[in-house]
């Protein structure tokens, strides 16, 4: 299903912060904001929820560490125990360094993969660019015309009042 969106293009970070905050306060539906760099405070202005990535990182780090402790114990004390300098079969303190490394490896790689999944980034994906300069020096606010009460002219005036360089109306696929 397609939806109609109104796009405002801005040229500096103060403007995009102001307009996003104001749009959210007016109850307009913000589809997305596009920026060439991470603008401090824009997530709050958009009213985004906290990212769940730290949980992925924590749980997979824990999984990696647990797996590695078990693996070291199983190989060294159970599967083929070898006497090395009379050290105990289960040399738990000596297992700590590798357990730590594997924890970091699991947590790091899986968080990045989770990020790619959540953000739908993959090699060869066609970027959905609103403006050729949005990865260079332009900012874009995308508002959805979500109901009949959406007054295009009024919102366009609102965007221009907030220093929009350009306002466009477009039809877009809803599923992102």
């Amino acid at each position, binding site marked *: 299903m397609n939806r109609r969106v109104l796009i405002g293009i801005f040229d500096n970070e103060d403007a995009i912060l102001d307009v996003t905050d104001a749009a959210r306060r007016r109850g307009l539906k913000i589809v997305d904001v596009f920026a060439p760099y991470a*603008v401090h405070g824009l997530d709050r202005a958009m009213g985004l929820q906290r990212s769940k990535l730290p949980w992925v*990182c924590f749980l997979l780090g824990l999984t990696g560490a647990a797996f590695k402790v078990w693996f070291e114990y199983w190989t060294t004390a159970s599967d083929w125990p070898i006497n090395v300098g009379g050290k105990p079969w289960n040399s738990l303190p*000596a297992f700590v360094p590798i357990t730590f*490394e594997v924890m970091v490896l699991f947590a*790091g790689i899986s968080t990045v993969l989770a990020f790619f999944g959540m953000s739908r980034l993959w*090699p060869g994906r066609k*970027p959905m660019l609103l403006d050729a300069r949005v990865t260079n020096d332009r900012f874009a606010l995308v508002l959805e015309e979500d109901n009949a009460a959406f007054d295009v002219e009024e919102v366009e005036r609102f965007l221009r009042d907030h220093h929009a360089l350009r306002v466009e109306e477009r039809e877009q696929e809803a599923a992102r």
Partner: protein
Amino acid sequence: MAEVCSPLRIPLIAGHKKAATVTEDVCRPMLRPPSGLWWAGFTLAFSLMLLGVAAVSYQIATGVGTWGLNTTVGWAFDITNFVFWVGIGHAGTLISAILFLFRQKWRTSVNRSAEAMTLFAVMCAGIFPVIHTGRPWLAYWLFPYPNFRGPLWINFRSPLAWDCFAISTYFLISATFWYVGLIPDLATIRDRLAGESARPTLRQRLFAVFSLGWSGSYRVWHHYEVLYLLLAGLATPLVISVHTIVSWDFATAVIPGWHATIFPPYFVAGAIFSGIGMVLTLMIVARKVMNLEDYITLRHVDAMCKLLLLTSSIVALAYGTEFFTAFYSGNPYEQFVFRNRALGPFAWAYWIMVSCNVLAPQLLWFRGVRRRIGIVFALSLLINVGMWFERFVIIVTSLHRDFLPSSWASYRPTIVEVSTLAGSFGLFFTCFLIFCRILPVIAMGEVKAVLHVGQASRPVQETTV
């Protein structure tokens, strides 16, 4: 949302840049044909690398007898080079991860190339233990994998096994961190190249594939920021663990001169010290050759000099503490090793180390010195030399006169070993020079976000659409 700007803050980026200027400045050297200077550097580096390839091929074909090692000095050049290169890598992670957690915004100008340096240095480091195994074609035995010999597993109690995991994890996480940082910039270049020609060129296709369809959506940026913080949080203890484990390769042995609890902090500080030295060497050349003086300013050089001074002081303290521990332990073997280190046959190496790592950096207390690029460059080279000798001194002087005077011996590197070291420098600089040509050396996305620091107002872009 106007921020209070202090007129006292020095701008991070000189020359009142706009976001579009940053893109332009960073992309320009990438998109024009390489200069004569680049070709000269590349030819030299590549020749050195070929020399290294020849030396390694010869020693693998002939055997470990091509080295100057003997039964007393069983570790020397290879392990020195290994520790040296791993140490170089650590500054990249310090700048990209630790300084990120400390909110040091100046890092944005140097982090991309410092991280690249980390990757190349770890690649160089990885070669040496593999060669040193003597049968490098069996190097995969270092990893636990189901095999037909039992399966016989590796000894997880051994620091050498720990090292193997530490270095591989370090390389993988550094590479991932670096690539994640690159994605927005790859997209910037992709969009800049778009429309350049009717049919997409290979370069355009590669940038399109590797930028993963990045569109600058803030819903993605929002997760990206958290991801970056998480990776920085993981890389920080990782980098400390890596050199700690490298130091355990020595400290868990009962050799006087190695068997010391001070080793982990001593090695980590030394690693960062040598790494910052290498970052400065590379950055001072890069800013000049690629006209990046507005991005890597004297302020950046000054900040890195202060880090050098700090880590040099820690290293100096460690040198002193080692002697004090030997004296205070009352252990005659320990005392002998340190007397022999400073006054024995390798005293020259010891005093090169002390002069380069402790005495020369004292000049950095002076602001005038920190702001003179020529002197800083010379000091950074001296520190590289001094830190190489530190590892040589620790390894060779502790081994060459051990408990039994009848087995005392000396060590002299062969031409094969010296060529391998030269080859590792060749590999490092070849990789770095290629990196400077094909990827943005400055993290554009991060620099754009700090342009306003120390400026009276945030930069407003030109209003043409």
